[in-house]
């Protein structure tokens, strides 16, 4: 049987990496994700985990190390935060193009400026179109579960793609929560050993990442597109299997909270959704018909599921915890993705964009309350003077 402990998101992820019996880990320090690596380093030093622990000379080096490790048949793990994530940008596409299912944990940190240690999802969202599986955990328990699920999804022969297992810096990575750490036998049943499709081996030399002529470009990209699309079915299967073995059931695409008969909802992802839940609960006690829809898998984006989930309401507020200067709609990437999903329904559902919690600030109860108030007004009148609001300055 597993054990229950009060641990942080970082320690929860490290425990998942240990349970996944990872072979190669490559680290480079940057707050806040570095808590994962310090815990893993301890596990390796104490003999709890038999893995090669390599110090990269930077994030670009980190990703290059796990690239090679994964190609040679090892289950590999790395991670980063903030500017570390963007420093390694060059290596993300080659890894998914080579179809190597390694995993990178991202504990969000703001890019510079403001250069603080606070959380903002901008760093990981910069990498959203690199052909990786991506999603956000909202609690330490989910951080552990996401790591296990993503290895299984990514290593499935129908997928073979790398994964970004994201968690909000501090709000998830450094806040303690009760975590059910499963035992190794359960994990073994859920996660079969990694079998590489073409192991690098000196006895059978191969060229990986070969330069190709332009006529090879379209089919190469089409292969990767098909892999991302076929991940949808595998993601659903993995969630079912996870529920069967571990008893924790997650909705694979969107988690709905108090949305029965709701008129207005907030659509968001990540740890701030936990704060939003307490506001929704309080407003429900006061008789308001409000709810929350939390996106669980960001890539591949569940267009159909988001359309079905959000199409039911009179107004939807989309919270972007990231900066996307000059973006269509003026708010953020979640707003544009949600609107694209809803586009098929015509103008049925008014959507508002809220930019909140930047620089690692909390999204407070009062701010959620003001957002719901605005949504109620738009649902009632069908009109709004503005589509996008930066909190706390504009609402």
């Amino acid at each position, binding site marked *: 049987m597993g054990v229950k402990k009060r641990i942080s998101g970082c320690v929860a992820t490290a425990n998942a990496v240990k349970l996944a019996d990872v072979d190669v880990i490559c680290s480079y320090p940057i707050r806040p994700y570095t808590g994962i690596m310090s815990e893993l380093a301890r596990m390796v030093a104490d003999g709890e985990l038999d893995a090669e622990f390599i110090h990269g000379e930077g994030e670009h080096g980190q990703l290059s190390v796990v690239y090679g490790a994964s190609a040679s048949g090892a289950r590999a793990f790395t991670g980063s935060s903030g500017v570390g994530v963007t420093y390694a940008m060059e290596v993300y596409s080659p890894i998914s*193009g*080579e*179809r190597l299912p390694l995993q990178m944990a991202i504990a969000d940190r703001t890019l510079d400026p403001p250069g603080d240690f606070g959380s903002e999802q901008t760093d990981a969202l910069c990498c959203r179109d690199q052909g990786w599986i991506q999603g956000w955990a909202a609690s330490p328990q989910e951080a552990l579960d996401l790591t296990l699920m993503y290895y299984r999804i990514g290593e499935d022969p129908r997928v*073979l793609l790398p994964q970004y297992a994201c968690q909000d810096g501090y709000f998830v990575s450094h806040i303690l929560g009760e975590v059910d750490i499963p035992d190794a036998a359960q994990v073994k049943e859920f996660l079969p050993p990694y079998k590489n*499709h*073409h192991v690098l081996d000196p006895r*059978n*030399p*191969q*060229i*990986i*990442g*070969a330069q*190709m002529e332009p*006529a*090879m*470009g*379209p*089919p*190469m990209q*089409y*292969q990767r597109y098909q892999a991302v699309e076929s991940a949808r079915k595998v993601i659903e299967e993995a969630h079912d299997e996870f529920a069967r073995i571990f008893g924790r059931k997650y909705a694979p695409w969107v988690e709905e909270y108090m949305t029965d008969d709701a008129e207005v909802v907030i659509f968001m992802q990540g740890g701030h959704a936990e704060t939003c839940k307490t506001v929704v609960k309080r407003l429900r006690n006061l008789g308001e018909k409000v709810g929350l829809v939390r996106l669980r898998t960001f890539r591949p984006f569940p267009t159909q599921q988001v359309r079905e989930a959000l199409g039911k309401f009179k107004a939807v507020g989309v919270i972007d915890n990231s900066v996307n200067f000059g973006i269509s709609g003026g708010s953020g990437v979640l707003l544009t993705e949600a609107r694209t999903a809803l586009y098929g329904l015509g103008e049925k559902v008014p959507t508002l964009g809220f930019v909140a919690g930047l620089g690692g600030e909390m999204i407070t109860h009062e701010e959620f309350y003001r957002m719901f108030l605005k949504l109620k007004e738009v649902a009632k009148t069908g009109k709004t003077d503005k589509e996008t609001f930066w909190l706390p300055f504009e609402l």
Partner: protein
Amino acid sequence: MSVPVKEVPFAGTVPSPQKENEGMITGSWRTRRPILDCDKCTDCQICWISCPDSSINLSDDGLTFNLKYCKGCGICLEVCPVGAISLVPELDFED
């Protein structure tokens, strides 16, 4: 014209060539040709290790350059500890 999807190797991974690749002859890119001073050469083979295009051949009579593929990058000249290699402009040669 694009190649059909089934005809591209999975993930672009292909077997490594075991011999010279006639489809990619790079010697014509060279503007300067490496020349070895056999009297200075100590046969340390550092140039052989360092050549990124494996264009240096070892033999019992000392090393030779494979001019079919040598691009004239000059790394061999940089790494040679005794200065036995020099690069001579291609226009100085008749062939």
